């Protein structure tokens, strides 16, 4: 499937339009859910870290440090990607599946359009661009949510939290999060496109393809999460 995507575009302007449309669908379309889960993810991490750090010798700023690293290293890239596998992956699979079942893909083929290039490539490229951006936004929102939850519940003061955020910060962690988000973005878009594009049958099969694509994407995301952690850290 991936090999078939690369051919000279019939009309670059139309491919660009399709790419921009996908960026809007994936990026803007998923922002709401990313916003909500990131805030709560950060808040819960702060509360649970504070609950476990009962030793009075450990400064409270350590809570912020733990929250920051947990969110950057794991929660922002992996949890966001798992959610996006559901939101974006099922959308891609059902959209392509519906196009296949209603012969819209055949109609494009008859027109002489490389359907893999026109339908799948812009989705993968848009996912590679937008999912890392969403992961970065999720990281910021997660940390902010953590701070707000800590301050509102009286666990940590704003100054202590900011101090903790600056403690032992490693830029490599951000690179690691980006490496994971690119990998996960590719997995989500390509797996769901594969299942959607190759649907055979009717409405029931579209649903099955959508579910299978989410399950396979999630498993692959978790597997690659472990593999990348083992390799890069």
């Amino acid at each position, binding site marked *: 499937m991936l090999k078939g995507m690369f*051919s000279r575009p*019939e*009309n670059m*302007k*139309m491919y660009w339009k399709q790419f921009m449309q996908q960026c809007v669908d994936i990026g803007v379309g998923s922002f709401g859910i990313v916003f909500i889960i990131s805030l709560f993810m950060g808040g819960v991490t702060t509360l649970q870290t504070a609950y476990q750090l009962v030793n009075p010798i450990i400064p409270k700023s350590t809570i912020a440090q733990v929250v920051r690293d947990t969110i950057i290293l794991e929660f922002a890239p992996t949890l966001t990607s798992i959610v996006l596998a559901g939101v974006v992956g099922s959308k891609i699979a059902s959209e392509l599946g*519906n196009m296949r079942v*209603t*012969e*819209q893909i*055949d*109609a494009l*083929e*008859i*027109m*002489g*359009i490389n359907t893999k290039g026109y339908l799948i490539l812009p989705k993968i490229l848009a996912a590679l661009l937008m999912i890392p951006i969403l992961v970065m936004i999720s990281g910021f929102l997660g940390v902010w949510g953590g701070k707000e939850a800590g301050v509102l519940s009286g666990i940590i003061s704003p100054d202590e939290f900011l101090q903790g955020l600056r403690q032992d910060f490693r830029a490599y962690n951000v690179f690691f999060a980006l490496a994971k988000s690119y990998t996960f973005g590719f997995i989500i878009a390509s797996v769901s496109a594969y299942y959607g594009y190759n649907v055979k049958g009717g409405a029931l099969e579209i649903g099955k393809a959508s579910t299978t694509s989410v399950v396979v994407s999630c498993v692959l995301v978790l597997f690659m999460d472990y593999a990348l952690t083992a390799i890069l850290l």
Partner: protein
Amino acid sequence: MIELQDIKKGFGDKEILKGVSAVMESGKVNLIIGASGSGKTVMMKCMVGLIEVDAGKILYDGKDFTNMDTHERKVIRQEIGMLFQGSALFDSMTVEQNVMFPLEMFGTGSYRDKKKRVAECLERVNLKDAAKKFPAEISGGMKKRVGIARAIVLNPKYLFCDEPNSGLDPQTSLLIDQLIKELTVEYNITTVINTHDMNTVMESGDHIVYMYQGQKQWEGSNKEIVFSNDQLLNDFIFASEFLREAKEMRQHELFSSGKWKEDLKNKAGNPAGGDRQKPE
């Protein structure tokens, strides 16, 4: 002209097309008819390249489509328009955008020229007022007409229609048939229609290919079909008492008007013509 030479196609152990040879004549409405499972849809999909044949050749004006590379096929495909059974309109686009799509992808000229061409095509299929509507907002017959407008927007040489009347009421079916027939003459297109509709067969079919169990059983015109003594064809076409009576009336009409003799004379040199039986 599209020529099929000994086309064979199977899926697994099941042989669907068992060496079909036929000719789709230029500037005419060519019909492929047959019972469900006779292989007519597979045959049409093979003709447009959606399914690859196992053996045989498909020639578009003498050019072998089966042995063409991707680039050569793209060139031929830009001369093909197709109306799908379910219309296959793009859900996220309006009627106007659907018709505009092939022009935007392949058309040259300014945006204004393209808009003008789209308006012409929509007017030709009587859908000018529905330009801004989405496919979900229009009826089945209108969807078919949008499909036709999209198929003809690039002035194709070949028009393929897969079951253009399926799911439509008799009156709308007649309109669609009439429209396809008119466009075939107007643009001098080689039209191939895959149908079950007996009205299309009798009214629009300039040239008819009857498929039976993966083989071509009969080939001829809509005048010849009423005089055919092929039992399988007669059982399929004139299945009801009503249709058998209609056949007799048509036979009488053609025979008394002398059109039958005319047709015989025209077809005398055509070996592909169907079996002819002089009416008693």
